[in-house]
């Protein structure tokens, strides 16, 4: 009796809401997750060749970065609305908008990571007979991975937050519930969806952090004073040292976010 009264009283925290609308919450979360995954995935696929082009032809670096920055300045609601005449009201509008936003962060971090590969390492690999493609995939990308992963984490977390704006046209995952709750002044719905959204962001960040640890075991080995780096040698030591510092900042960041969520 007491449990269902919190719905009638429109309280902020309502267990009955979570129980009775669990299907709706699960559907919204699933939509949120797939919109995010599609956006970040496509963003990564688009930004990788763009970053390589911008690196190969330095004249293009400025225009590519400048253009993505201009896109980044456009407010999300305006971005989605401007895409409506092109695609109609659909999930692809939201995904396209989010892809455009993620490009700024991903291209910048890809370029930073690739530029930071020590010239000595590159020379050594070339001397060993590595071609362009092999050099890129077996030496440069692994060394750029910490910067790329940092960008991926930022892009993922902000995409999860921004997906909610898609709620204005019904394709915003948990944002649908937030918009609906705002219109009907349904407190429990807005709060529950918001908290789930932040939890998703924290979870995604931790998962990506774990993935980064798995993919770059040499960074940890080096930090612990272990053997030398994989392709790096002495020159990359300072680099990994810095990565270690970022890593600690990020762990604290995650902790702070958890606190914020609680």
């Amino acid at each position, binding site marked *: 009796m007491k449990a269902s009264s919190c719905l009638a009283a429109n309280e902020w925290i309502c267990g009955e809401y979570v129980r009775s609308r669990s299907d709706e919450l699960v559907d919204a979360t699933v939509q949120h997750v797939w919109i995010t995954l599609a956006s970040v995935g496509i963003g990564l696929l688009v930004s990788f060749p763009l970053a390589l082009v911008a690196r190969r032809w330095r004249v293009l670096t*400025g225009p590519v970065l*400048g253009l993505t920055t201009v896109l980044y300045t456009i407010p*999300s*609601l305006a971005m989605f609305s401007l895409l409506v005449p092109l695609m109609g009201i659909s999930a692809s509008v939201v995904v396209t908008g989010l892809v455009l936003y993620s490009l700024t962060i991903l291209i910048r971090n890809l370029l930073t990571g690739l530029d930071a590969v020590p010239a000595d390492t590159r020379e050594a690999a070339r001397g060993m007979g590595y071609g362009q493609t092999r050099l890129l995939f077996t030496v440069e990308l692994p060394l750029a991975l910490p910067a790329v992963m940092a*960008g991926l984490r*930022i892009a993922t977390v902000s995409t999860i937050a*921004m997906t909610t704006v898609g709620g*204005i046209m019904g394709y915003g995952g948990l944002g649908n519930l937030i918009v609906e709750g705002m219109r009907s002044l349904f407190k429990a719905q807005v709060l529950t969806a*918001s908290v789930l959204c932040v939890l998703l962001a924290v979870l995604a960040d931790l998962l990506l952090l774990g993935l980064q640890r798995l993919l770059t075991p040499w960074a940890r080995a080096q930090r612990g004073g272990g053997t030398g780096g994989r392709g790096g040698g002495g020159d990359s030591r300072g680099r990994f040292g810095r990565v270690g510092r970022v890593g600690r900042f990020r762990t604290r*960041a995650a902790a702070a976010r958890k606190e914020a969520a609680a």
Partner: protein
Amino acid sequence: MGTIADAWTWLTTGSNWSGPGGIGVRLGEHLYLTGMSLAIACAIALPVACWLGHIGKGGTLAINISNVGRAVPTLAVLGLLLLTPLRMHGDWPTVIALVLFAVPPLLTNAYVGIREADRDVVEAARGMGMSGPQLLGRVELPLGYPLVMTGLRSATVQVVATATLAAIAGGGGLGRIITAGFRTYNTPQVVAGAFLVAVLALVLEGVLVIAERLLDPMRGRRTDGRASGRRTPAGGPGTPTAPGAKETDVPAGEQKPAPAPL
């Protein structure tokens, strides 16, 4: 492309510009909300950042506050604030939400700017007998100025975008034109409103870039190798860089682009 033509017709119709819900009034509301929130956010964030940067403490807080800001959806905060009793107080819930999202970029960038001011110069100034306030006002602030302005720019982008979202909850501003268009299935109006919002965001960004150049306390003096090397981003000094792009030698990820433009 018929929608684009219709949107243009909507924009060039005089009656849409005047009246209580016209573009003129909405633009005024948008600028008022943006200006007021930025002023309050600066009044809160800049003294705190100056003080923390000067004494060199609280770095974890200053850096992580922008991580937290990125993970929390602006729409959620707007929704939650609008459901509190504050709802009865006109624009205040919107202004509070805008301030909450403007403070992190301002605080983080200003802190990093002051903290990363050339230590040799700071030590020299201290050796010359400058007091704490003198050191802050004459050395650390002028040297950290580019990053303080970067923070202001990303805060502005954020506030303009969030003010647009306030319309979903029934607030004022140009976003109202978009949401009204969605509600009445008037796509030309949605596109016209989105166009206005995008132009406003880009114009404000441009104005701030010009203001940054004109007000630079080190104007004309930042030409020697060390100082200019510090300022030149990959795209050249003329590129409208993303917040966080104009970075110093901070590793990627630690100094990150602005929180998502929500």
